[in-house]
């Protein structure tokens, strides 16, 4: 076994993991703040990709990169205002059921709007080439996405740790009731948080579209892994999502290298093991969702 191949696989696994991180962070702030188990997160990802397709056809990929996540964030806010907020405070079961049904309907909307078959999509011409990293050729687009998500995670960290708004969101994850008592408009906060989560899912969809192509079920391929990531990392934990996502990416890559047959199985196996041994995941805090 050559070291260069191992390093290539690790790097590629981290790249995949970063995508999971992006998805999981949106999921985890929604879950942490409102107690909503958002099964529609995958379809928001899908929407991100399809909107990219339509926008890019007219205005180009770069415009889509800007517009699509904001649109998906908007869709998220509308869903939150119209539907999801009605189940706040109830058993998490209801939010799970609600978003499950929502995902089902929205996926059909995608099929009606854009067709049942997959759509072709390639990276923008300027990035549609590869780079010689000495140990391997690597697609330039994937490299750029790698750097972009890293920056984004830093920005998000900055937002949560250093800005007032971010501190309120974090406080909301800790104890949303208390935040309300302290005079913050929790209704607006919740809408904003849901919108931010949807924005992140949409962005993940935009970035994925050129790598995997676009199809109605593409959300299925990422929604389960991102649930696994937050369970691994601990619900509501920023660092948990980052560590969990990268860990999962590396596990999948290593399985693909050595025992491809168990690549998908391994994700669920790891989640079950972690949960059975560490009930709240790696960085989870007591009291959430129990």
């Amino acid at each position: 076994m050559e070291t260069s191949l191992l390093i290539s696989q690790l790097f590629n696994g981290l790249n995949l993991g970063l995508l999971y991180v992006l998805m999981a962070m949106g999921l985890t702030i929604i879950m942490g703040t409102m107690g909503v188990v958002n099964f529609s997160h995958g379809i928001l990802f899908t929407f991100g990709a399809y909107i990219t397709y339509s926008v890019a056809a007219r205005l180009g990929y770069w415009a889509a990169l800007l517009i699509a996540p904001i649109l998906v964030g908007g869709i998220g806010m509308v869903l939150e205002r119209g539907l999801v907020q009605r189940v706040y405070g109830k058993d998490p079961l209801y939010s799970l059921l609600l978003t499950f049904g929502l995902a089902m309907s929205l996926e059909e909307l995608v099929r009606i709007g854009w067709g049942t078959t997959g759509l072709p999509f390639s990276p923008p011409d300027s990035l549609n080439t590869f780079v010689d990293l000495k140990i391997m050729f690597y697609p330039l687009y994937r490299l750029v996405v790698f750097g972009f998500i890293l920056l984004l995670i830093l920005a998000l960290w900055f937002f949560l740790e250093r800005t007032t708004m971010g501190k309120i969101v974090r406080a909301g994850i800790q104890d949303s009731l208390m935040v309300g008592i302290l005079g913050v408009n929790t209704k607006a906060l919740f809408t904003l948080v849901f919108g931010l989560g949807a924005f992140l899912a949409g962005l993940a969809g935009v970035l994925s579209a050129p790598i995997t192509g676009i199809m109605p079920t593409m959300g299925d391929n990422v929604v389960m892994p991102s649930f696994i990531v937050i369970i691994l990392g601990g619900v509501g934990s920023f660092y948990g999502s980052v560590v969990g996502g990268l860990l999962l990416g590396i596990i999948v890559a290593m399985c693909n290298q050595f025992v491809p047959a168990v690549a998908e199985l391994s994700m669920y196996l790891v989640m079950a093991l972690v949960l059975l041994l560490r009930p709240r995941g790696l960085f989870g805090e007591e009291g959430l969702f129990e």
Partner: protein
Amino acid sequence: MRMYSKKDMLWIGAVAALFAALPLLLPRIGSSIPVGTEIMIWGIFATGYNILLGGTGILSFGHAAFFGLSGYATGLLLVRTGMPLPAVIPLAVAASLVAAFLIGALIIRKRGIYFAMLTIAFGQMFYFIASQWNSLTGGLDGLTGFKRTDFLGLDLRPEDRFYYFVLGFFVLTLLLVRGLMNSSIGKTLVAIRENIDRSEFLGIDVKKYQHFAFVVSGTFAGMAGSLYVLLLNFAFPELFYWKTSGDAVLMSVIGGMHAFFGPLLGAGVFVFLRDMISTLTPHWALPLGAVFVTFVLFFQKGILGFFERGKNG
């Protein structure tokens, strides 16, 4: 205490009579007898599943594991051993019972979302094993090479015969589940659903009861899975998929998870809609999802619960 009230017997009798007559009706409305068989099979799954969801207040997204396990066990026993059906079905259902017991023992102490996620995790493990262990399960090709033949001399090959065969299991399920929910165990389950803390305070071993409900519902899922595979003469990995579990949840919620016949009604609506509308448009899931969302938001007691005005069953 009597197991069944007069009203129970009347209702179950009426439902049994309705389903006994259904084969005459189905072909006349552009449907077919196997559609009726499928409604009863999903009815068994959902009614049993609802002991857990509606009865005990626990959400599992992993009961497809037991549905599929028993289904594959049925197919494998028929392909590999050539055992007769009267042995195959109980063995297959027993496999689900054992699996539900073991998985339940591992995870029943987890609460809420963690429990739900663990049920998905176990279900998906079965899914990936079934889709990749080619030499045993046939992998993504599914498992073929077996046919339902006879049950103690009764030829089950014609669709109408098999329909009435399933009807037997179906009525049995209704009687067993109704009896269980009427019994002191059933009352305890409902008490746990209504107020866990108080139940614990009263000295009830809550986890033991929840585990029991998990195993029983898993066993009924197994019964349904075995019959379903016999209906199609085919087993395939999607039997295990988490969305199959989702279908059972959907049926319970739409029909009404706090009404005894709710899940059955949900199963009927689901199968009938899919069968009718999927021919016209592949987008049958759109209205179904919308109806589902509406029910979660506004009619949390489901169709039947809505008419029963809050009476719990």
